């Protein structure tokens, strides 16, 4: 059947040729439409959540006598933590922490990227001056690509200068201290104890002292409102 074989050959050539063309078109479109969309911040961003007037001691934000504690495991290079810090944290701080109902405790992990250990050490050092949350918020506001070493000394210094009352030289000295290293290591053990598998992860301590794994990721404010309201009512 010569004619049939000829049709088959044409069909095959058309199918594979069309496929090759479609593949090339998809690649070209992707390059043209998405190319150049970088994520590295061009300049220092200083617009962060308003924490003025909220008590802060070490890594605890809020009334130390608050009946409910929200523990957040975060990494300074974690982009999902950034989503949470910029989207949900300001509302939590305003509605629950400033009102004295809930206190937030931060535990820093350092597995996401090459800048994670430096970010953790700097925030721990800032906690020794009771200014951890301002620096943490600034780090998230200026976070770079998690796969790169984005947190340079120059950037860290520039950000630290935007935290009112923070002694920058002391900050850098403390960041390299044995005390900070020891505290950092303790977070890893606590994360294992709380079965933390990623960041951000949240643990709720209810008024009866029981710890509940609340969840992970950046789910928005509503799940937090439900859990916190229930804990406060209990």
């Amino acid at each position, binding site marked *: 059947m010569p004619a049939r074989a000829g049709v088959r050959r044409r069909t*095959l050539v058309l199918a594979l040729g069309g496929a090759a063309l479609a593949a090339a078109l*998809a690649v070209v479109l992707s390059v043209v*439409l*998405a190319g150049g969309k970088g994520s590295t911040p061009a300049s220092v961003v200083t617009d962060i959540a308003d924490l003025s007037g909220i008590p802060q001691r070490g890594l605890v934000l809020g009334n130390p006598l608050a009946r409910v504690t929200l523990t957040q495991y975060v990494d300074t290079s974690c*982009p*999902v933590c950034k989503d949470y810090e910029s989207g949900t944290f300001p509302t939590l701080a305003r509605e629950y922490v400033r009102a004295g109902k809930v206190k937030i405790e931060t535990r820093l992990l350092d597995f996401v990227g090459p800048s994670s250990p430096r970010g953790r050490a700097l925030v721990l050092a800032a906690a020794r001056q009771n200014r951890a949350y301002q620096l943490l918020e600034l780090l998230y506001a200026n976070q770079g690509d998690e796969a790169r070493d984005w947190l340079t000394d120059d950037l860290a210094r520039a950000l630290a200068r935007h935290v009112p009352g923070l002694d920058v030289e002391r900050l850098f000295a403390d960041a390299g201290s044995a005390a900070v290293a020891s505290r950092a290591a303790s977070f890893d053990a606590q994360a294992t104890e709380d079965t933390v*598998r990623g*960041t951000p992860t949240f643990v709720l301590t209810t008024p009866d002292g029981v710890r509940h794994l609340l969840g992970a990721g950046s789910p928005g404010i509503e799940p937090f409102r439900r859990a916190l309201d229930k804990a406060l009512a209990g």
Partner: protein
Amino acid sequence: MTDRTLRLAVAAVAAAGTGVAAYLTWVHYHPEALVCTRGGGCETVQRSGYAVLLGVPVAVYGLVAWSAVLALVAWDAPAARVAVAAIALVAVVFAAYLVVLQLAVIDAVCVWCMVNDAGLVPALAVLGWLRARPAVDVARAGPEA
């Protein structure tokens, strides 16, 4: 390897690909489910500008392609085999491009994308070619066949 075995293998790979693409599509539309994990990265790839093509998530194209392969395997006519090979050709070129993007441009790896791009798609290309080969041989033989 018998044709029946090859057909089952293509079906298994397509089913796995459909599952991975469905998960990636779901995550694309539910970014709140993303978490940074040890060794698993932060799914930065999923949130990069390259994750969307012409307003449609790349994962959706994958889901459509894998579903089409599943349907074509079920149909199993000679034309269906050629169509699977054609889809595999498009997929293998685009998957190679996506792997290069992850390693060299985005500088982050999405584990499930790699399972698809470096595992399932090449497997489909090999299996799809093996199944389409009789049709290719007939066509290559030309009018004398």
